[in-house]
């Protein structure tokens, strides 16, 4: 354990780095994309259909599709993870935006809000719970998916698991697996707290 500490920390760092970057990048891309699909409903069908089709591509195959062109392990895994997270997020944001009650929209329009102002000050805040739910889902799946990066040699904790398998060292597989689950749970918990923090109105409203 003492000597493995460095390896474990390295792998964990790699894993966390991949996850955070992937989810952050995906969020930055997903919000405008979903907003666009929302403002132009004609785009919503193709966007959702395309993302659904992409989601059926196995992660192993996706990494294998990207790597030969880039020949950069970290970048390939990162792009793959961003794509999967993106699909989850776009879907959730879009659902959140579409879930805004028509009355609320009418009220805003009646107050003279333009399309952009309606989107930014009424619809987006309204969609925050759905966005947060998407963010949590995307993060948890990204943590699990990152392990598949072993096929290109950059899988964070997956790397440890695979090494443990190859040297028939069960403790190493189990340690990495448990760390992976723990990482997913911690990330999920943090995001839930963040979600509570950014939606104070939900707590104030729910008098139970």
């Amino acid at each position, binding site marked *: 354990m003492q000597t493995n500490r460095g390896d474990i920390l390295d792998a964990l760092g790699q894993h966390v780095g991949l996850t955070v970057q992937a989810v952050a990048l995906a969020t930055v891309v997903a919000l405008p994309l979903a907003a666009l699909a929302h403002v132009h409903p004609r785009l919503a069908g193709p966007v959702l259909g395309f993302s659904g089709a992409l989601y059926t*591509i196995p992660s*192993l*195959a996706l990494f*294998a599709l990207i790597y030969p062109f880039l020949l950069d392990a970290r970048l390939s895994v990162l792009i793959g993870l961003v794509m999967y997270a993106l699909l989850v997020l776009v879907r959730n944001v879009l659902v959140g935006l579409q879930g805004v009650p028509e009355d609320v929209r009418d009220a805003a329009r009646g107050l003279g809000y333009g399309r952009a102002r309606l989107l930014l000050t009424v619809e987006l805040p309204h969609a925050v719970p759905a966005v947060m739910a998407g963010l949590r889902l995307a993060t*948890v799946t990204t943590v699990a998916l990152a392990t*598949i990066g072993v*096929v290109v040699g950059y899988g964070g*904790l997956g790397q440890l698991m695979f090494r443990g*398998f190859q040297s028939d060292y069960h403790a190493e597989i189990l340690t990495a697996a448990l760390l992976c689950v723990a990482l*997913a749970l911690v990330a999920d918990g943090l995001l839930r707290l963040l979600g509570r923090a950014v939606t104070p109105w939900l707590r104030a409203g729910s008098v139970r």
Partner: protein
Amino acid sequence: MAARRVGPVIRTSVAGDAVTWLNDPLNWTGPSGIPARLVEHLGMSAVAVLLAAVVALPVGVWLGHARRGGGVAVMLANASRALPTLALLLIFASTAIGFGNRATVVAAAVFAVPPILTNAVTGLLGVDPDVRDAARGMGLSPTRSLLQMELPLALPLLAAGLRTATVQVIATIPLAALVGGGGLGPIIVSGFANRRFGQVLAGAVLVTAVCLLAEAVLAVAQRAVTPAGLRPARARRVRGIAPGTVRGSNEHAAVPSPQESA
């Protein structure tokens, strides 16, 4: 087996190599040819889905019928998301279950349970209580009510669960390559090992194509098994004209569209 390089100096693009690999007759014949691998891949997938269905369908149907277990199903689905497939696969492969295909099939089956189970539970929970009341009022025993009313009504979601699980399993089976198993995965993994990226790309394209194809075929199949009155698009209008088509159309006529009652 090896991708023959035609004009290696000029043709250095990976995509070109992939096309070459896919056009090599050697890759289409024999025990490690693409057809044999595909058959093995689909066979492994079928076993995994069957295993999962045998466990998940009865349990899910029973939980939903008994009106409980919604929470358990959701919890299971969430927990399975946090556990990496690779971890379970490697743990199985390094224990008594053994190397290769068997470990992969079992791991894929484990991850296929949550979608089948949750969909079965939600499908049966979604049956309108009025329909169950009507069944009881007509003197149907709980078993008959389950078999003749609730199951047909839950069929679309049961089918959806099986479809999700199947596509997911087909997408998971390539991981077998990491533990010395078969299927289409080894094309990719051995390509990486030998730094033949054309072969890697060709393998990835094959796996992707199989997944997309399976998804499309199953979408059609799901629609086919869904009773006419329950099909999603314009369900209400279809229901209006549907009565008298087949035996059991009365049951379907009694169903309000799932979400909205307003």
